[in-house]
């Protein structure tokens, strides 16, 4: 008797389960994990899933690029939509691993600036590399520009930069007097020469965001270039740290879709809905990274105070430099990355 009941219950639940997976549309979405992906789940993924009536399966990978390559090489495409730096979407697209986006099916991206889009990608979320400093050390006269950061006489103190050329070379060129709108293509030789000047005064070349935050919080360095979200978290904890978006380097991660994605149609619908201004405006409520669609700032959902803390708000975007992903994914950009290793090592 019990056995029979069990069997009935089992087969019934199996039927429900099978029906569930067969009828509802679904996609697999991939981001970088951690607090960032958690925030997205609440801000974007859950609302989109509800709106479209689809299931959003999640996966995470701190660096999606090697996995994209592996999936493409093996022919077993598991992922649909990925949230990753635009440069990977672009070089992936050029190598046939990322699908071209049909923007006629993504009307929500229409009003986004052209610089936020590529044939393979569309901006999803913004962050910035900003100059952060110790308020106790500099009091009324903190370093405000990269020229100040390079000026070890006027602003003595320990410094840290990211152990990566992206945004670091740009900062060196700004410090050397290159105009912000004339940065690209980067004069790599000039940038490394300027960095060589500062090198003896850089006490740490940080490799992880957590490390950059720790350096500020513990007072190990007096000024550093770090991601705005990390700096904001340190400030929130009460550390005497200041920063501004002036001369910050605006960067974004993009949404893109894998070539041969198993749920292509749903993936396109997902991308469009995720860029809805009203849903994009949820970002600031959960994390210090800004919406990819500037229209979000017009929804009234983001308070002016909060907008001032967001790297992508129109006011802040105007005083920053947008990092050119196309240049960094070009051969010249790849060469600069290779040259970086020998620079920090010597």
């Amino acid at each position, binding site marked *: 008797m019990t056995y029979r009941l069990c069997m009935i219950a089992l087969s019934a639940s199996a039927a429900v389960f099978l029906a569930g997976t067969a009828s509802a549309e679904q996609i697999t979405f991939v981001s970088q994990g951690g607090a960032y992906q958690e925030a997205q789940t609440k801000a974007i993924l859950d609302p989109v899933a509800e709106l479209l009536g689809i299931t959003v399966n999640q996966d995470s990978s701190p*660096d999606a*690029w*090697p996995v994209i*390559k592996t999936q493409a090489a093996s022919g077993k495409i598991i992922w649909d939509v990925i949230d990753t730096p635009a440069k990977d979407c672009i070089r992936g697209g050029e190598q046939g691993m990322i699908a071209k986006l049909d923007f006629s099916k993504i009307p929500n991206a229409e009003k986004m600036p052209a610089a936020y889009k590529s044939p393979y990608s569309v901006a999803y979320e913004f962050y910035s590399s900003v100059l952060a400093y110790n308020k106790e050390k500099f009091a009324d006269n903190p370093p405000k520009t990269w020229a100040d950061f390079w000026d070890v006489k006027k602003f003595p103190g*320990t410094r840290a930069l990211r*152990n*990566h050329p992206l945004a670091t070379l740009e900062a060196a060129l700004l410090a050397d007097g290159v105009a912000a709108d004339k940065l690209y293509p980067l004069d790599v030789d000039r940038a490394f020469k300027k960095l060589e000047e500062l090198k003896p005064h850089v*006490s*740490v*070349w*940080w*490799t992880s965001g957590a*490390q950059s935050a*720790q350096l500020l919080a*513990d*007072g*190990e360095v007096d000024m550093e270039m770090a991601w705005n979200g990390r700096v904001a978290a340190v400030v929130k904890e009460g550390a005497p740290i200041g920063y501004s978006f002036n001369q910050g380097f605006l960067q974004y991660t993009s949404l893109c879709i894998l070539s041969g994605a198993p749920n292509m149609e749903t993936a396109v619908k997902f991308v469009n809905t995720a860029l809805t201004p009203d849903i994009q405006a949820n970002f600031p409520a959960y994390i210090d990274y800004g919406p990819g669609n500037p229209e979000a700032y017009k929804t009234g959902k983001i308070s002016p105070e909060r907008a001032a803390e967001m790297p992508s708000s129109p006011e802040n975007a105007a005083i920053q430099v947008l990092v050119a992903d196309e240049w960094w994914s070009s051969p010249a950009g*790849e060469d600069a*990355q*290779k040259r970086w*290793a*020998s620079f*920090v*090592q*010597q």
Partner: protein
Amino acid sequence: MTKSTRNPSELHERREQRLMLLLLAPALLVIVVLLVLPLLWLAWQSIWQDGRFTFAHYERFMTDSVYWLAFLQTFRIAAIVTLLTVVLGYPVAYVAAGAPQRWSILILTMVLLPFWTSVLVRAYAWLILLQRNGIINSALTGSGLIDAPLRLVNNEFGTVIATIHILLPFMVLPLYATMKKIPGELTMAGASLGGSPMHVFLRVFLPLSLPGLIAGMVLVFVLTLGFYITPELLGGGRTYMVSMLVSRNIEVYNEWGAASSISVVLMICVFLVFRLASLLIPFERIMGTR
């Protein structure tokens, strides 16, 4: 058929050998599938790219200064760490081997205690101790011994200190095991024949402890060659060891072939170190099986 094969004792021995092989089979299988095959795959990747053989990844060792500078720094750090663990570890093992049992247990427990803490936690602990506003610098500047904080971490110095801390047990334990087996009568005999304590130590005790010393040195040296987390967290970005070269080739440049070739060369270096050491003492003694 020769007569000897029918010899019952020899038959028995053969059966026993077959049984031993059978007993070894699972472990052997695991090693082949999980270690030997992946390593061969690794080596293959370093010479085979886009459907043809290439030595481009190995040529970089000649042309790219990043490569040999990373190897140079790795070997230098390994040498410094090995030397300093000898200086720190030998007296500890000596005292532990000579002390009454409850004291030697206490000493060995203290050597092993940090061993049970994760490498990551210990790296951060050193950061707290050594950084600019850390405990050591605060104490030194607070007491007026120095004016400005010393640069103790985020460089090779901090990396070496933390690496020594992690690897010290690998020096102390083989030394202790060897010293424990040195009969006390030998040193007593040396003393009774008129040797000064120093003379007895240098002529009797030290040579007898040499196998443990070499075993410890080889272990520490080889383990340092592969260190990753410690230099990554405490090196400040300017300590660039071979393991970091491997990871950067995969993470940043996506060059699996290059990463494989570096791993292969590092592995050959490790084999060479073992070979050199086995010229001094038999391999089984390094591994502590005899």
